[in-house]
C-alpha cells in the first residue's frame, strides 16, 4: 500500500464510520447515464443557476437596494449631478468603479438569459421526445414551476437597477396588479407601500430576488435532480436499448469529467459573452422618472411574448355599476398566460387520457413518430413566437420601415390563424418523415449509382441499411386508437357522451400514422 492509498483509506474510513456513505457511493459511482447531446440542455440550466448564484453574490456586495434619493457624483460624467435612487447610483458604481464589476453584471445578465433559454429548450426536448410520460410527471410539473418562477425572477432582477427602462417595466407590472377586479388597487398599494413608485418596492423585490426565489429554486432543483437520479435517465431507442435497461457510460470517471468539464465550458462561454457583448447598458437609460420613457421600451425576451400579447389586445373595458374591468389588461396579462401555463403543466395527464396509456416509458419518442404531439408543440411555439414578434413590433417597424399598425395587425390576425396552420403543416411533415423512414427500411439507401440493365433500362442501386439502423427506425410502438363506444353492450348511451366523443376523436387523430415496416414486409420484398 502506498502512502497515498493509506491517507485516502484513513479519510474514507473516517467519513464512512460517521455516515455509512461507502455502500451508497459504491453503487452510485458506477451509475449509468445514457449519452446524447440533447441531455446536456438541462445541464446548461443547472450550471447557469450556479453561475447566477456566484455572480449575483458578488453584485450584492456593492448594490444598495434603496430608493432613497441621492445626487450622483461618480465617474460617469453624463449623469453627474443628477438626482437618482441609491439603487441606480450603486449599479453605476458597480459598473464603473468596481474592477470586474461591469464584467460580473454582464455575466449575471447573460447567465440569466442562458438560464431562461436553457429551460425553454430543455422543456422542448422533454416535450417533443415524450420524456414527460409516466413515471416523470412530477418532474414535468416541477419544471413548469421552475420556468414560471424563472420568468418572475428574471423580471425582478432586471428591475433592480431602477433605471428608466426597468422602472417602466415596474410601472406596467403595477398596472396589471391594479387591474385585478375588486382587490387590485389594494394589492398595488400593499406591494408598493403606497402610491407608485414609492420607496418600498426595490428593497422588497431585492429580498424576493436574492433570498426567497433562489431558495425555492434550490429546493425544486434538488428534488428535480434527485428524481432524475432515482428514476434513471430516459434513453433514445437503439440497438440493445429497451424499456427495462439503461445503456450508457458509468458516472466515474468519464461522465464526471464530461459533466464537470461542461460546467467550465458553460461558465467560460458566459464569461466570454460578459466580456465582449454589452448587455443592459443602464447608464444610457438614465434614472427612473415616471414622467419619462425611452422609445423602444421592451422587456427581456422571456417577458416579451407577454408584452406582445398586451400590445395586441383589443381596447376593451367594461364599466358596470361604477366599477371598471380592464379586459385589455386582464385577458393578455393574466387569463391567456394562466391558460397556457396550466395547460402546459397538465399536458402529461391530458395525453395519457387521450391515449389511455398508463404504462411506464423510458425510451424516448422520435418526434416524427408522434405527429399529433409534435404538431401541438409547434402550434404552441408558433403562438408564442407571434406574441414575441409583436412584443418587438416597434423595433420591427423601425428596422424594416413598416408602420406599427401593419405589424400589429399582422400579429392580431396571425396569432389566430398561424398556429392551426403550423399544426397541419407539422403533422404532414411528420407523416412524410415516417413514410421516408419506411422507404429507407424497405428499399435501402439510395447510393446514387446508376446501373444500366441489359435491355437498356436505368435503375438506381439501393443499398440495404444496417440492422442497427433498421431497428432504430422501427423500434417505436404504433398504438391503435382507443376503441370507445358511444353506447354500451346493451345499446344504452354512455354517460358523459360529449367527453367520450372528444376523447375518441382526439385518440383517432393521435393514432394517425404510416405503418412501420415489419419483418414480413422485408421478406415479401426479398421474394420479388
Amino acid at each position, binding site marked *: 500500500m502506498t502512502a497515498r492509498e493509506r491517507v485516502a483509506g484513513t479519510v474514507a474510513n473516517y467519513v464512512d464510520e460517521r455516515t455509512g456513505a461507502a455502500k451508497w457511493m459504491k453503487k452510485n459511482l458506477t451509475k*449509468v447515464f445514457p449519452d446524447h447531446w440533447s441531455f446536456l440542455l438541462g445541464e446548461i440550466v443547472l450550471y447557469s443557476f450556479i453561475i447566477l448564484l456566484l455572480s449575483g453574490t458578488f453584485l450584492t456586495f456593492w448594490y444598495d437596494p434603496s430608493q432613497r*434619493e441621492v445626487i450622483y457624483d461618480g465617474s460617469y460624467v453624463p449623469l453627474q449631478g443628477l438626482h437618482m435612487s441609491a439603487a441606480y447610483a450603486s449599479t453605476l458604481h458597480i459598473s464603473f468603479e468596481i*474592477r470586474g464589476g*461591469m*464584467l460580473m453584471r454582464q455575466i449575471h445578465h447573460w447567465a440569466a438569459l442562458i438560464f431562461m433559454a436553457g429551460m425553454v429548450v430543455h422543456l422542448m426536448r422533454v416535450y417533443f421526445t415524450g420524456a414527460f410520460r409516466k413515471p416523470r410527471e412530477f418532474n414535468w410539473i416541477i419544471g413548469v414551476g421552475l420556468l414560471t418562477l424563472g420568468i418572475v425572477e428574471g423580471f425582478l432582477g432586471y428591475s433592480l437597477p431602477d433605471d428608466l427602462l426597468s422602472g*417602466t417595466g415596474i*410601472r*406596467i407590472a*403595477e398596472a*396589471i396588479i*391594479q*387591474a385585478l377586479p375588486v382587490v*387590485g388597487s389594494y394589492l398595488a398599494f*400593499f*406591494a408598493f*407601500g*403606497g402610491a*407608485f*413608485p414609492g420607496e418600498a418596492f426595490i428593497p422588497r423585490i431585492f429580498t424576493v430576488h436574492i433570498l426567497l426565489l433562489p431558495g425555492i429554486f434550490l429546493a425544486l432543483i434538488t428534488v428535480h435532480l434527485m428524481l432524475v437520479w432515482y*428514476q434513471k435517465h430516459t434513453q433514445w431507442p437503439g440497438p*440493445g*436499448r429497451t424499456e*427495462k*435497461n*439503461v*445503456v450508457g*457510460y458509468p458516472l466515474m470517471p*468519464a461522465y464526471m*469529467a*464530461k459533466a464537470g*468539464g*461542461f460546467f*467550465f*465550458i458553460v*461558465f*467560460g462561454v458566459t*464569461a*466570454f459573452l*460578459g466580456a*465582449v457583448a454589452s448587455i443592459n447598458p443602464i447608464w444610457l437609460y438614465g434614472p427612473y*422618472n*415616471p*414622467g*419619462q420613457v425611452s422609445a423602444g421600451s421592451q422587456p427581456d425576451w422571456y417577458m416579451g411574448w407577454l408584452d406582445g400579447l398586451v400590445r*395586441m389586445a383589443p381596447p*376593451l*373595458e367594461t364599466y358596470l355599476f361604477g*366599477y*371598471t374591468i380592464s379586459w*385589455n*389588461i386582464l385577458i393578455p396579462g393574466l387569463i391567456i398566460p394562466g391558460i397556457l401555463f396550466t395547460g402546459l403543466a397538465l399536458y402529461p395527464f391530458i395525453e395519457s387520457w387521450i391515449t389511455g396509456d398508463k404504462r411506464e416509458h423510458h425510451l424516448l419518442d422520435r418526434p416524427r413518430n408522434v405527429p399529433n404531439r409534435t404538431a401541438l408543440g409547434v402550434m404552441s411555439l408558433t403562438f408564442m413566437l407571434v406574441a414575441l414578434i409583436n412584443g418587438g413590433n416597434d423595433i420591427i417597424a423601425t428596422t424594416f420601415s413598416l408602420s*406599427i399598425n401593419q405589424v*400589429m395587425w399582422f400579429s392580431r390576425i396571425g396569432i389566430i390563424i398561424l398556429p392551426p396552420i403550423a399544426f397541419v403543416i407539422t403533422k404532414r411533415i411528420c407523416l412524410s418523415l415516417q413514410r421516408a423512414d419506411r422507404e429507407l427500411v424497405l428499399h435501402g439507401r439510395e447510393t446514387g449509382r446508376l446501373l444500366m440493365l441489359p435491355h437498356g433500362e436505368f435503375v438506381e442501386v439501393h443499398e440495404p441499411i444496417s*440492422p442497427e439502423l*433498421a*431497428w432504430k427506425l*422501427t*423500434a417505436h410502438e404504433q398504438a391503435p386508437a382507443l376503441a370507445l363506444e358511444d353506447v354500451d353492450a346493451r345499446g344504452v348511451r354512455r354517460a358523459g357522451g360529449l367527453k367520450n366523443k372528444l376523447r375518441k376523436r382526439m385518440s383517432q387523430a393521435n393514432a394517425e400514422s404510416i405503418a412501420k415496416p*415489419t*419483418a414480413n414486409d422485408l421478406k415479401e420484398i426479398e421474394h420479388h
Partner: protein
Amino acid sequence: MSNEIEAIKDPGLPAHVHRQADTDPVAEKRAERQVAILFLISALGTVLFIFAYYFIPEDVFFFFPVLGNTNAHQLFLGLGLAMALFFIGAAAIHWAKTLMPDEEVIAMRHTLRSDDEDRDALVATVKERAGAAGLGRRSLIKRSMGLSLGLIGLSPLILLRDLGPLPGDDLTKTSWKAGTRLVTDPGDRPIRPEDLEVGAVAQVLPEHVGKERRHLSDIAKDAVLLIRLRPEEFQLSSERLSWTYDGIIAFSKICSHMGCAVALYEQTTKHLLCPCHQSTFDVPRAAKVIFGPSARALPQLAITVDSEGYLIAQKPFSEPVGPSFWERSS
C-alpha cells in the same frame, strides 16, 4: 410461413470500437499532451486576468472591429476569465473522450412501484397507527384542530397588512387644483402661452411649493403634456374647447392603458403614441384612442391664464389619470 406480423429484430448492443489512443501508445501520448496543453492555456487565461486587473488602466478605450469602442480593462479581464474557465472544461472533456474508458455498459432499471407486500404493510401500519391516535374517533379534537389550523393561516396574512396604506382617494386625486400654475419639467419655470409655438410640445408639472423635492409618486400622476395647434384644427365639444387656451391643449402624460409616459408626439399627424404598447391618441379630438390597446382617451386638463399671463389649471382633472382600476367609475 405464418401470417403473424413479425417486428424487425433488435440486433443488440453493437461491439465496442476501440479508439486510436486505446491501442496506439503514440496516439495515447499525443492525447495526453493535448490535454496538458489545454490546461496550460487555462492557466495562461488566469495570468491574463490578473495582469488585466492590476496593470491595464481602466480608462483606456480602443476601437475593436464588431465590438466598437471597447474598454481594454474590462475586455481583457473578461477574456482572461473566459479563457481560464473554458479551457479547464475543454481539457476535462478531451481527457474523458480520448483517454478515459468509453465502453458503453448496460444497467437494469428497477421497477418504481413497491411490492404488493410492502404496500399492504404500509396501509396496515398507517391504519393501525392512525387508529391508535384515534383521529377517526375523537371528533371533538378533529374539529377543534381543523378550526385552529384554519385560523392560524390568517395570522401571516394579517401581518402583511402594514405593507402599505389603503388607496383611499389617492388614485383619483392629483396635485392639480384650480389656479395651479403650469411649470416646465425640467426647470420648474412658469410658462406663458407665447412660449409655445404652434406645433410645439412641452412637458409640465403643477407648481411645487415647499422645500422638499417633488416625489416621484406625484410626478407619476401629475405629468402633463401641452400641445399647441391652430385653434381651428380642434374637433372638440364646446365644453372641451373651453378647456383649451389659444390653441394650447393639455393632457395627462400618464397613459390611460398601463401608465407609461405617453412621450411620442407626431407633429404631422397630430397623434400621441405611447412607446410601451403603441396606444395612439388623436390630439385634435381630445386624445381619442385611434389605435392600440388603451380603452380610454387621455384625461384632459382644463387650462387658462392668470392675471400675470401665466398658464394655470382652471380646475383639477375631472377624472382619475393613469391606468384603470376596479373602483374607477368610467
